[in-house]
C-alpha cells in the first residue's frame, strides 16, 4: 500500500472521531507546551542574569584581599588589608593585558544637600573605573588623574542619590553637597544602571577620586578592591595570570606562600550563575517532560480502546485485502498523526504562553530552538513508541474472529 493511501486512511479514521482525537492530542499539547514554556522561563532567567553580569563589563577583573593567617588565626577579608597604591603602580608599570585599573575604597555615610539628606556609599575610584564598569555619564564631566593627584573634593552622583538630594529636578552639576561633614562639588551625574544580579541598587552611589576618600574620609592607605579590565574577554585568563605574578612580587610572597589576594573575573561569576539557572531549567524541563510522557500514555490508552472498538472494522479491512502490515501501519500512522499534530499545536501554544508570561508577569523568557526541536522529536518518538503496541495488537487479529466481533 502506498504511503499516501495509508496517510489518507489514517486521517479519515481520525476525522471520524474528531473529539476523541483532539482530547488525546490535548495530553501531548499540554506536555509540549509546558516543556517549551518551562525551558523558556529557565533560559530567560539565565539570559537575563548573564546580560546583567556582562553589563558590568564582561572583561572586568576584581582583586580582593584574601583571608590571611596571622599567628595561626585565619582572618576574614575585611580585616585584612593588603592592597595599596604600590600594587597599582606595579600593575600599571608591568601589565600588558590590562587596559584600565582602578582601586576602590568604600565608605558609608550621609550625603546632604541643604535640607535633604540620604544615606549612601561613597566610592573612591580612579578615572579608569567608569571605563572598566562600562558606565557612562548622563551629564557633566568625569574627574581626571589631576583630580586624583590633588585629592580634589569633586564627585559624581548616581541617579538614586540625585533623586533623593534634588527631588525638585534641579541640575546637580555645579552644586556643592556634603558627605558627612566634607563638602564635595558635583561635576557629573552617572547614567542609570539599575539593579545588579543580586538585587542591589547600583545607582545608590557617590563616586569621588580615591585619594580624596583615603585622605579626607577613611584615613587609610589600603584599598578594599582593585578593579581592572582585560584587553578583551579572551585575554582575561592571561590578564589574571599576569596580575597574580605582579601582585605576588609586589607583596614579596615566597614561592610556597598562599596568595594574600583573590582575583575574580566576570566570566567566573557568569558561569556560577549560569550553572544555577541551568539546574533550574533542567528541573522545570524534567517536570514538563513527565507530563509529555503522561500524554504519550494517553495516546497508548486511546489507541488500545480504538483497536478494541474497531475490531470489526479491522476484520472488514482484512477481508477486503488489508495485510497485517497495512493494519499495523494504519494504527501507527494514526498515533503519529495525533502526536505530531499535538506537538505542533503544543509548540505554538508554548511559544505563545512564553510571550504571555513575559508580557503579564514581566518574567524574562527565551524560547530556545533546541527545546522546540527536541520536544517535537520526543513527540514523534512518543507516537511511534506508544502507538506501536496497540497497532501490533490490531495487526495480529484473526480476520474471522474480528469480523464476528460484536
Amino acid at each position, binding site marked *: *500500500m*502506498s504511503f*499516501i*493511501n495509508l496517510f*489518507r*486512511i489514517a486521517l*479519515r479514521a481520525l*476525522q*471520524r472521531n474528531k473529539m476523541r482525537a483532539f482530547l488525546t492530542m490535548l495530553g501531548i499539547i499540554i506536555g509540549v507546551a509546558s516543556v517549551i514554556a518551562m525551558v523558556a522561563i529557565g533560559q530567560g532567567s539565565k539570559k537575563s542574569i548573564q546580560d546583567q553580569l556582562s553589563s558590568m563589563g564582561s572583561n572586568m577583573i576584581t582583586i580582593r584581599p584574601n583571608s590571611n593567617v596571622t599567628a595561626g588565626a585565619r582572618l576574614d577579608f575585611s580585616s585584612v588589608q593588603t592592597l595599596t597604591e604600590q600594587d597599582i603602580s606595579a600593575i600599571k608599570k608591568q601589565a600588558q593585558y590590562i587596559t584600565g585599573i582602578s582601586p576602590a575604597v568604600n565608605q558609608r555615610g550621609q550625603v546632604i544637600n541643604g535640607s535633604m539628606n540620604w544615606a549612601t556609599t561613597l566610592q573612591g575610584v580612579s578615572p579608569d573605573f567608569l571605563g572598566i564598569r562600562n558606565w557612562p555619564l548622563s551629564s557633566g564631566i568625569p574627574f581626571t588623574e589631576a583630580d586624583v593627584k590633588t585629592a580634589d573634593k569633586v564627585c559624581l552622583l548616581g541617579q538614586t542619590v540625585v533623586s533623593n538630594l534634588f527631588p525638585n529636578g534641579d541640575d546637580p552639576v555645579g552644586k556643592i553637597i556634603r558627605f558627612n561633614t566634607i563638602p564635595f562639588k558635583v561635576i557629573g551625574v552617572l547614567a542609570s544602571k539599575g539593579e545588579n544580579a543580586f538585587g542591589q541598587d547600583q545607582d545608590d552611589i557617590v563616586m569621588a577620586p580615591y585619594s580624596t576618600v583615603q585622605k579626607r574620609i577613611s584615613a587609610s592607605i589600603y584599598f578594599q578592591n582593585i578593579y581592572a579590565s582585560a584587553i578583551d574577554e579572551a585575554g582575561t585568563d592571561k590578564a589574571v595570570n599576569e596580575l597574580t605574578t605582579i601582585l605576588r612580587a609586589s607583596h614579596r610572597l615566597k614561592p610556597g606562600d598562599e596568595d594574600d589576594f583573590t582575583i575574580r573575573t566576570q566570566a567566573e561569576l557568569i558561569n556560577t550563575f549560569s550553572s544555577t539557572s541551568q539546574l533550574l531549567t533542567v528541573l522545570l524541563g524534567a517536570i514538563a517532560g513527565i507530563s509529555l510522557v503522561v500524554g504519550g500514555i494517553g495516546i497508548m490508552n486511546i489507541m488500545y480502546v480504538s483497536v478494541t472498538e474497531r475490531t*470489526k*472494522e479491522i476484520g*472488514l*479491512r*482484512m*477481508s*477486503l*485485502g*488489508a*495485510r*497485517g*502490515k*497495512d493494519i499495523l501501519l494504519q494504527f501507527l500512522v494514526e498515533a503519529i498523526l495525533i502526536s505530531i499534530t499535538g506537538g505542533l499545536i503544543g509548540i505554538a501554544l508554548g511559544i505563545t504562553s512564553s510571550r504571555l508570561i513575559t508580557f503579564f508577569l514581566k518574567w524574562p523568557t527565551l524560547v530556545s530552538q533546541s527545546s522546540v526541536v527536541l520536544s517535537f522529536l520526543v513527540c514523534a518518538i512518543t507516537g511511534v513508541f506508544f502507538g506501536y503496541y496497540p497497532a501490533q495488537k490490531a495487526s495480529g487479529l484473526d*480476520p*474471522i474472529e474480528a*469480523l464476528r466481533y460484536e
Partner: protein
Amino acid sequence: MEKKILEIKELKREFRMGAETVHALKGISFDVKQGEFLTIMGSSGSGKTTLLNILGCLDKPSDGSYLLDGADVKTLSRDELARLRNHKIGFVFQAYNLLPRTSALENVELPLMYNASISARDRKERALRALEAVKLAERVDHMPNQLSGGQQQRVAIARALVNEPVMLLADEATGNLDSKTSYEIMALMQELNTGGKTIVFVTHEPDIAAFSSRTIMLRDGRITKDYLNEQPRSAKEMLAAMPATDDY
C-alpha cells in the same frame, strides 16, 4: 468448456477444542464454473460458515485442496491470502459492514486503497461506476446512516464489485432485510449474474435459493444434495407481482 473458478477436492477442516477435535467439514468436493449462481444451504452447525470462511480465503483447509481461479489456497501465506481476497473475491456481509461516518463513495473505494497499482483518479472512477451499477449514483456522498438497509447493502455490493473480482461471496446477504428489499437485492444479484459474474451465496432460506442456478445442501459437514435449478425464479418478476403499496 467453461473456466472453473473454484475447484474443491476432499476439503476437510478440523478445529481443536481442548482435547476434542471437531470435524466441521468432513470431505467436500465440488467445482464452480464461471457464470454460475450457486447457493450453499444448510442449517446452523452444518459447516456452512466454515466453508464460507475457506471459500473467502479467510481460513485454510486442514486437508484436501482448494483452488481459487487456479491458485492453491492451502500453500499461501497470510499476506498472499490478503492479496487474493483483495483481487479475486468480493465479500457481501449480512450486516453490510460499512464504515460509519464515511461516505458511500469512500466505502466503495476502500478495497482499492489496498491495491497500490490503482491511482487516486482511477479509484474514484471505478467506485462511481460500481455505485452506478447498483443504481446508487445519486447517493455517493451519503453516509451509511442516511441510507436505508437495502441501500446500504447495495453500497456493500458496489464495494464487492469495485475490485472486479472473479467471484462474489455473499454471507446471508438478505438476512437483515425485509422480503421486498431482499427481492430487490436478489434482482440485482441476478442481473450481475446475467452480466457474467460468478456468485456464491450462502443462506439458510430456501426461497432465496430458488433464485439461483444451482444449490448445494450441507449437513453435518457433508454435501447432501447438489442440484441444478433448471428454472430459477426471477426476482424482478416477483417484485413486479408484489402489491404496489404495502401499508403495515
